């Protein structure tokens, strides 16, 4: 079964591709073997993350971006992530509404994904989905996610070029300092640039970018609040990438939408990473983070397996009754698992 799915994906079967993505999302048994078999075929696509607050026009921009890539004869896969309801576990995945222009084009593949329960689980699912789409031969893989929290930020950072989308009227420049996502932008887009207030937004974002220290961005990648320090092999001069500020009107006709400028900015960023050898460096860093993530998940699973069934629940009760504090409860769990 696994072998036929793998063959299907490599031979261009959309059904097999869609099913493998489902299995990746569900972490279905046997999917690890399929991913292992695909792994050597990955690394060809350029991956692009698109994030920003709700309502900034991310989906419309991704739609325009995909159309522009198609005009260059490049194939495009899109992974559009929408939030899962914390109450019901359900989700409404509505990004396709803005991407209807892409329908009927066999060079485009759109997949919607819900954030579901666990942070680690989503990062894993998105990373593996990108690999599957990469192995399936798409030239560009675009991941779109709501930039509303650390988890989404982490996911977008699994890509090679990160685009942060802003729009006029969402807050003053202090909001821009607060929003940590500005710092992760390789390319900053002000969408809806025809709206009133666009020039103010442009001005304040420009000011914010000038305040930041651009060279620091490539040296540290914060992850789940943990900073991983890495030695930067390139010199300071080579690593200086100032995120360009691109104004777009994603729903305007192609020649006046600014999307060509955006494509150029992405290409420039890619070229910069290649020339400065930062691409390698960043890839090492992404792999490192992924290994930490997977290790954390595996250790947690192993630990849970080793515990007698009621360990956690009985400690929950003890903490509730103030018999023990949470820190010592965790120590106790570790002691039990050691035995």
């Amino acid at each position, binding site marked *: 079964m696994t072998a036929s*799915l793998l063959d299907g994906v490599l031979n261009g079967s959309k*059904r097999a591709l869609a099913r493998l993505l489902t299995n990746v999302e569900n972490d*279905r048994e046997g999917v690890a073997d399929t991913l292992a078999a695909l792994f050597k075929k990955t690394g060809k696509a350029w991956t692009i993350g698109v994030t920003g607050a709700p309502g900034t026009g991310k989906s419309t921009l991704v739609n325009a971006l995909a159309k522009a890539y198609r005009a260059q004869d490049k194939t495009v896969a899109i992974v559009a992530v929408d939030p899962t309801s914390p109450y019901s576990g359900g989700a409404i995945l509505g990004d396709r509404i803005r991407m209807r222009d892409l329908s009927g084009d066999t060079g485009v593949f759109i997949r919607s994904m819900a954030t579901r329960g666990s942070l680690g689980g989503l990062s894993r699912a998105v990373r593996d989905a990108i690999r599957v789409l990469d192995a399936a031969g798409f030239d560009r893989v675009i991941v779109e996610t709501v930039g509303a929290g650390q988890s989404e930020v982490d996911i977008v950072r699994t890509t090679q070029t990160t685009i942060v989308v802003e729009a006029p009227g969402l807050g003053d420049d202090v909001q821009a300092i607060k929003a940590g996502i500005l710092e992760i932008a390789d390319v900053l887009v002000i969408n809806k640039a025809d709206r009133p207030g666009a020039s103010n937004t442009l001005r304040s974002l420009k000011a914010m970018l000038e305040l930041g220290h651009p060279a620091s961005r490539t040296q540290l990648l914060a992850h789940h609040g943990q900073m991983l320090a890495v030695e930067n092999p390139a010199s300071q001069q080579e690593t200086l990438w100032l995120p360009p500020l691109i104004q777009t009107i994603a729903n305007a006709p192609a020649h006046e939408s600014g999307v060509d400028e955006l494509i150029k900015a992405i290409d420039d960023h890619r070229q910069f990473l290649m020339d400065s050898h930062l691409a390698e460096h960043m890839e090492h860093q992404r792999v490192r983070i992924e290994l930490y993530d997977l290790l954390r998940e595996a250790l947690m699973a192993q630990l849970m397996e080793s515990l007698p069934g009621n360990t956690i629940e009985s400690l929950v009760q003890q903490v509730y009754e103030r018999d023990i504090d949470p820190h010592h409860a965790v120590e106790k769990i570790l002691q039990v698992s050691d035995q």
Partner: protein
Amino acid sequence: MKNRAIRVLIAKPGLDGHDRGAKVIARALRDSGFEVVYTGLRQTPQMIAEAALQEDVDVVGLSILSGAHMTLVPVIREAMDAQELDDVPIIIGGIIPDDDHDRLKTFGVRGIFGPGTDTELIAKHIRGMMNPDREGTA
């Protein structure tokens, strides 16, 4: 961690612009724990089949209020079959005369829900339709 959510496509084929019903259903299914791929208004049969294919949904839900169900459903079924989605069932919400039900069933329609149907009933119906072995059978 094993995650398994039922994925439902909610689409509105044809030209009428009344999408309130589709949105109510999408929202209700979300609240019942489904992952709802919502594609919105004026979907062609090809768009519906393509979305169902790429999203690997378990069921396709169509909202049809225009009375054109006997025209639309066969064409949508055909477009889905052309994408090898012959095992994916269709459910319909809208105003569908009783006389048409039997004929619609021949196109793989596994549920028809008129105005005022309790949304919990629809959720329950979809759960009941699911083949527990569906995954991995590509």
